């Protein structure tokens, strides 16, 4: 009789153990939909950021998943347009890949943001810099893991105050919302310091020959030039500015200028250019050191800013999943709100008021380091300076 009882207990225990392990295995995987720019104007950045995302996913899966959950991804092409981006994202969200990440252009991010509620999805922006993402278009299900424009511009005035002897400035910006916003913010920062902006030029997006603009910049009385151009326009300008000797005769200060892909594509033309930087491999945090070391081992070179942005975006999602112990978009969003996250920039807070990941920001210069030309950090700005920007977001 007694042996039978023990037998029952053993069987029950075995069953319980089996159920337990079955439960552990049944932990729902993290399903991430990567909306990636694989064609159109943002393909180069899209390719970079996808490499970073893939690296983060592989790293998590090699370490046994995110809080024990395997990470699965689907990748689709947003064709660099909001319409295609929305279509791909909707397909992912409706097939269960409802943790979204990936597009470059802010217009795509904003298009996704409007639909998250309807799709029951969550979206983490990795490279879209528009302030609207955490401003009037903010959303309980949308998070900005990258530096916003406001964060980039917030460090311009303190930097100018400490580091710029120049009294007169010129501005060259692409003629659309981002370029105009950047030019206006820079003008304000300069005027607050009692200095002047001599000339402001807006070049249409898609300009190939910048010679007419460069001639005007050279002829102006400005001692330094603020440049806010994007993509191919920026690369063409960088080469032509060096060709005409503008880079050596006036200090060039860039908004989103000194990035690795620009330096690589222009063969020495960016040497000595200053500007806002969001990342450099030398950032001294344990997480960044480990990340750079692992990246070098795999790719034999340092990661660039787009790759880091992609890497960081996936990590934000995975940390949100771990904190929520759930893959439900609403649960992950609730866990991310106000959370302290481990990033390559050190510990960073996902600000509860507007869902901006608040982290340090940098000013730097393109220099030769060990024979290789690359952007190098000159001044670091603490997250508190960067984050001072108020926002018009109602969550």
């Amino acid at each position, binding site marked *: 009789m007694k042996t039978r009882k023990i037998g029952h207990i053993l069987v029950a225990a075995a069953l319980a153990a089996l159920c337990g392990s079955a439960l552990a295995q049944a932990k729902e995987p993290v399903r991430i939909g990567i909306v990636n720019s694989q064609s159109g*104007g943002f*393909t*180069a950045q*899209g*390719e970079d950021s996808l490499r970073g995302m893939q690296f983060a996913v592989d790293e998590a899966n090699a370490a046994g998943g995110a809080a024990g959950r395997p990470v699965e991804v689907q990748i689709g092409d947003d064709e660099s347009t909001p319409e295609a981006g929305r279509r791909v994202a909707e397909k992912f969200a409706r097939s269960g890949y409802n943790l979204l990440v990936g597009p470059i252009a802010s217009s795509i991010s904003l298009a996704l943001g409007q639909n998250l509620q309807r799709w029951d999805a969550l979206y983490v922006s990795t490279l879209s810099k528009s302030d609207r993402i955490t401003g009037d278009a903010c959303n309980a299900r949308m998070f900005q893991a990258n530096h916003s424009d406001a964060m980039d511009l917030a460090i311009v005035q303190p930097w100018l105050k400490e580091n710029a002897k120049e009294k007169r400035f010129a501005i060259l910006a692409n*003629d659309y919302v981002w370029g105009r916003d950047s030019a206006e913010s820079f003008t304000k920062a300069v005027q607050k310091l009692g200095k002047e902006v001599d000339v402001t*030029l*807006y*070049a*249409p997006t*898609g300009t*190939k*020959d910048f*010679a*007419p*603009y460069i*001639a*005007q910049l*050279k*002829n102006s009385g400005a001692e330094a030039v603020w440049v806010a151009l994007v993509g*191919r326009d920026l*690369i*063409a300008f960088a*080469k*032509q500015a060096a*060709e*005409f*000797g503008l880079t050596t005769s006036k200090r060039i200060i860039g908004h989103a200028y000194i990035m690795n*892909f620009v330096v*690589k*594509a*222009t*063969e020495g*033309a960016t040497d000595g250019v200053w500007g806002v930087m969001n990342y450099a491999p030398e950032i001294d945090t344990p997480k960044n050191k480990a990340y750079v070391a692992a990246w070098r081992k795999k790719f034999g070179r340092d990661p660039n800013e787009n790759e880091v942005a992609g890497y960081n975006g996936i990590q934000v999602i995975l940390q949100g999943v771990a904190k929520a112990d759930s893959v439900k978009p609403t649960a992950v969003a609730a866990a991310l709100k106000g959370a302290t996250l481990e990033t390559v920039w050190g510990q960073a807070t996902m600000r509860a008021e507007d869902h901006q990941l608040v982290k340090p920001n940098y000013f730097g210069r393109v220099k030769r380091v060990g024979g290789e030309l690359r952007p190098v950090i000159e001044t670091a700005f603490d997250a508190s300076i960067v984050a001072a920007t108020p926002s018009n977001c109602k969550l």
Partner: protein
Amino acid sequence: MIAIQILNGLVYGSLLMIVASGLVLIYGLRRVVNFAHGSLFMLGAYIAYAASLQFGFGGGLLAAVAALAAVGFCLDRFGFRLLQDRDPLTVMLVTFGLLLVFEDVVQSIWGKQSYSLAAPEALQGTVDLFGSPFPVYRLAIVAVGALVAACLVGWLRYSRIGLFIRGASTDPVTTAMQGVNTDRLSGGVVAVGAALAGLAGVVSGPFLSLSPTMGSDILIDSFVVVVIGGLGSFAGAFVAAMILGQVQALGAVYLPDLAALLPFALMTAVLIWRPSGLSGSRV
């Protein structure tokens, strides 16, 4: 300042002229609006880039022009010749498809990142013009443009083949009846047109960036040139390219808010007042 701006316009105008003259050649003989022309421009730049790593800029230039001439010949032999009895719209769609195919081919070989083609050693640096330094390389572009224009005019006006080409572009059937092998002629002409696109690609390499979509960017400007000048007219394309270069350079200075619009406004105006272009239908 204004002298420098006019010179700037001349540089960009010369570049557009080289691209547009290729388009005009191909249209003249085959009546094909060649959308693939932009991708030939891009292909030229990439081939020059690859070859220049081994043989320098000069080697790159030769390789690109030779390779593009071959591509052009094949395009005519296995494309335009087979499609010559089809609806022009069908042929146009085929060339548009080719544009996408070439872009993808380049993307799969060289990837999506931008590359830089260095200017030849001897043409780097600047000279003082009107009191400010001007890149020597840009002056060389004007020279290349002038050389191309002179060669084309000489070839078309004074050579026997030029006579055939002018004849065939006015009336291919009658020209063929006179004993001219228009198919063989077209092969050669499309090859030259494609080589010109390649040449323009190489020449623009040092001041634009090499990316798979660089072709579609320049294609729009070249079509504006061809429409303003009159499809199929060299003199028209030449004049229109120079006008467009000036409109872009001076527009950027004196009418900055309209700079992006001006080329298209000009094109619209020409289409309204002289639908066949500035030069009418003269070759």
